[in-house]
């Protein structure tokens, strides 16, 4: 039985709480980034780029039976780790469920405060793009 969105978020919060230092949390994000499912080169197109990120971030999706499946990539590995968290939580969920989610686990793990302001903006752009796609497909 697949985890619910809440279970998945709690698992991430628990994982992050294992590390005290942010350097260790980065290490964890880097691991996640390295393990993110390969993203096809031909989908690294201008229209899939998320605007407002310091590094380049591509987001692709498809809808099956009302569920949205995300795939994403970045040329920066920590960003890729962050994407991996988002894809892990939201990919394969019902559009309505994503659209109504508060994305609060991002705050719970302190991610925003521990990114440079430009990176934090990039993170917001990623979240907004995911939400907008969900709304469009509700």
């Amino acid at each position, binding site marked *: 039985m697949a985890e619910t969105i809440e279970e998945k978020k709690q698992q991430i919060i628990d994982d992050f709480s294992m590390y005290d*230092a*942010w*350097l260790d949390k*980065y*290490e964890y994000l*880097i691991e996640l980034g390295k393990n993110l499912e390969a993203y096809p080169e031909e989908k690294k197109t201008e229209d899939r780029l998320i605007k407002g990120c*310091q*590094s*380049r971030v591509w987001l692709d999706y498809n809808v099956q039976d009302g569920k949205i499946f995300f795939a994403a990539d970045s*040329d*920066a*590995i*920590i*960003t890729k780790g962050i994407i991996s968290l988002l894809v892990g939580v939201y990919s394969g969920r019902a559009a309505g469920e994503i659209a109504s989610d508060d994305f609060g686990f991002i705050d719970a793990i302190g991610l925003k405060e521990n*990114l*440079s302001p430009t*990176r934090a903006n990039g993170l917001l752009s990623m979240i907004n793009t995911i939400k907008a796609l969900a709304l469009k497909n509700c």
Partner: protein
Amino acid sequence: MRVDELRNMFPALAASVYGKPLVYFDNAATSQRPRSVVEMLETSIYGANANIHRAAHHLAAVATEEYESTRDAVRDFIHAASREEIIFTKGTTESINLVSASFGEAFVREGDEIIVGEAEHHSNIVPWQLLCGRKGAKLKVLPVDDAGHLQISALADLITSRTRLVAVTQISNVLGIVNPVKEIIAISHAKGCPVLVDGAQGIVHDVVDVQDLDCDFYAFSGHKLYAATGIGVLYGKRKWLEQMPPYQAGGEMIGTVKFSGTTFGPLPQKFEAGTQNINATPTLKPAIECAKLMRDPELAAEHKAVREYLYKALTSDPRIRLYGLPQRMEDKIALFSFSVEKAHHEDLALILDKMGVAVRSGQMCAEPLMGRFGVTGMLRASLAPYNTMQEAEFFIRSLRKAIEMLV
């Protein structure tokens, strides 16, 4: 003077970030300020705050004296022929915009050309692009080679009878190589073309003598030279400044104002419209003193050792690609931009930050140069004489650790 004595003059250097000692290696973006600069700011706010050139009262006289004596200090520092050739602006960017607007208005026509270097900061590209757009003029580029040297052998042929100005940086904020501006100026003058030098980085690292260089314009910012933010300088040869129309208008820059027409004041007021940054401008005086102090032989020797250590460490690591490889070591300042194979500059900067090391990452306001080297950005460590060998060693250790985490 020892480096630790110098450091004591800069309280910000004692800071810690995330519980670790701050290693501030982003001096090319802005330097830290010595106590003397902050004290001057306080003096000019609490002891000399009145509008200058305007009122009869005592405080206005003191404020005017603080402001105008700063002009003398700058004239002396860059060895300009006269104080009227020193215009206060808000920084390098405004200085260049002033020239592009005003010199451009007077001298640039349709079909004319402006030449800029390939390694210029956006501040020495975009104002010229806008001017060319307004006038129907053409922007031409003097290229750099793979090592980062300006190809000045190409300059003489690039300059035509339609070239109105060459605008070039003394030291690129990415490559950290001292350009042979004196030679560039000689070549350009031989073809009858004036030269603007972007001295934002140059003023910090070199003794600048504008008469010896024979440059027509020289622009720099206070904040990279240990002074307060929001102030900068445009040096211009009197013969040009006198022929150029005002850049902005209003305030004390006038001669007489009538609805039938206005005449303008003499240099330098003609180019200083509105209330100037009267509080911060006097901080250039202690800042200049501080810059001179840093030329102390003991400090200079230490700074050179740190620079050479970093150059070796960065060029001997096969994973690292350094941009700006000097033919002669003395032409390289302690500014190192590089990329690391398989590691993104943003990731590196983020990890270094958590180790207490402040470096710059990204395009560094030189997007054409990033394209030239085929990268989306770089990492840059830029040092001042108050940075220590210990910090440099810590930076290299931290960088290696960051690379290992990422690759």
